[in-house]
């Protein structure tokens, strides 16, 4: 556990030594601010529903930028060799990296609290759905970050990692957007696989264990594939 936290802590701090963390934070805050406040006053309701709708989409695009370098850059520069030859297991490396980026993601989420707080000064905001929405965002974000880490474990090129992660996360996000075109059986399967389907119910204030487990499973699955990819280096 100590090793995981040490790796995670280093990763977290190193984001702030470079531009990536600042750029991602700025982009998320600005686009969210624009889309959210653009329509907020048309509804005439003190609600954060619209914010979550936008934020979940923005993050699907923004988070792969945080994960693209996690392993790809270490492989390109060779620092992975020093990291792995320390007395740690591959699983500890993967979990440490994941915790490091998850920490940065938590910072991003905390910063967006500025919006619901502003809303609550304008009217009577119901905080229940806000908290469940944040829980949903955190879980969906974990899944997206795990997918990004997995993509980063497959290559030593950050751009390839970025595009693979973007493609996969956007794919899972849009999955339930064209269900009308499909036969009912296929539609219900696809809907169940869609990130947004599980997230939207949490944004409405419904915390269903099945939704939590869904994001959890995706996260674990992606992390274990990243672990396999990192481990396979030994036998290649």
């Amino acid at each position, binding site marked *: 556990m*100590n*090793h995981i936290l*040490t*790796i995670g802590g*280093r990763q977290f*701090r*190193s984001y702030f*030594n*470079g531009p990536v963390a600042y750029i991602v934070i700025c982009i998320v805050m600005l686009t969210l601010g624009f889309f959210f406040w653009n329509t907020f006053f048309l509804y005439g309701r003190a609600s954060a529903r619209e914010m979550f709708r936008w934020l979940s989409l923005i993050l699907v695009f923004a988070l792969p930028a945080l994960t693209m370098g996690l392993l790809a850059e270490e492989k390109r*520069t*060779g*620092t*992975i*060799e*020093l990291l*792995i*030859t*320390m*007395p*740690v*297991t591959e699983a500890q490396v993967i979990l440490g990296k994941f915790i490091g980026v998850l920490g940065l993601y938590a910072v991003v989420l905390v910063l967006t609290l500025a919006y619901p707080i502003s809303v609550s000064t304008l009217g009577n905001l119901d905080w229940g759905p806000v908290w469940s929405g944040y829980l949903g965002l955190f879980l969906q974000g974990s899944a997206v970050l795990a997918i990004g880490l997995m993509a980063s474990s497959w290559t030593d090129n950050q751009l390839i990692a970025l595009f693979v992660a973007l493609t996969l996360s956007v794919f899972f996000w849009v999955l339930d957007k064209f269900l009308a075109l499909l036969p009912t059986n296929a539609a219900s399967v696809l809907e169940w696989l869609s990130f947004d389907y599980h997230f939207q119910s949490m944004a409405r204030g419904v915390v269903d264990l099945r939704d939590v487990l869904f994001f959890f499973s995706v996260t674990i699955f992606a992390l274990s594939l990243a672990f396999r990819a990192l481990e396979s*280096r*030994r*036998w*290649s």
Partner: protein
Amino acid sequence: MTDVMIDARDLTKHYGAVTALKNATFQVHRGEVVGFLGPNGAGKTTAMKILTCFIAPSGGTARVGGADIFEDPIAVREAIGYLPENTPLYTEMLVLEYLEFVGRMRGLRGAGLQARLRRVVEETNLGDVIGKSIGELSKGFRQRVGLAQALIHEPPVLILDEPMSGLDPNQAAEIRELIREIGRERTVILSTHNLSEVRVTCGRVLIISQGELVADDTPEELAARGGKPRFVATLRQNGHSASDIREAFSAIGDAQSVTEQTSTADGEVIVELVPKGNQDLRADIFQAAVSANLVLLGLEQRGENLEDIFRQLTTGEGASS
């Protein structure tokens, strides 16, 4: 614990159809500084990556500090301080921040960590750059940061992959001195293709060529292995033809072979003589030159050197006849 710190048996590594390492068997004892010598791509780095458990061998196994690389890779890694080729470091971190990170990864905490940090910074002379970011450092300083991170947990075994490549002669001399100092108490394996480096730093040399271990000896023994001394005489040509000159020296009874190379525009001829046994031919050469009326400009005795041996062993070319 035994005295054998590294015990490699039949290490073999295939990358697809390429065999990078073939049945390498060697042992390194406590307190030895061993040089891994070989041309680029000979398998030095592969052997080191196997010992540090970064990659697994396709065949064979090894024990480091008593622990098996398959059964207990964590114990192996604990026993090793490793400096990979090209010194990969997190360039965005500060020197101190980085060393602290490595110390924590190595299980050091609190006062123990601070004490070790002070010690390695002193040993590697990093005091002046401790607050700088690694990306700003010169190659020599980066190399020292690389050594510092390898030393921080006082490992019994150090594995250094080309620790002196890319350094200027002054920096290389400093690092060499440092490694020699470290080697007094620890077991060190370093790889290089620089022979003078080996002669000064290493007590033993493993020469590796095309994945195979072709020699395992002290630098002195290796240099002596070529055996015969050679005598090189420089003469003024003075109108004599090259074959005349060779003729004059062929009369020397103990000479096994005489070869001449006509040299530069200033009319000098260099003749090389190899004795039949271990005889000293210098007096005979002088006499032969005098009686043939040749002016002897220089006379030199050369032993076969490490460079020749290296070339011989790694290319199969004869160094001299």
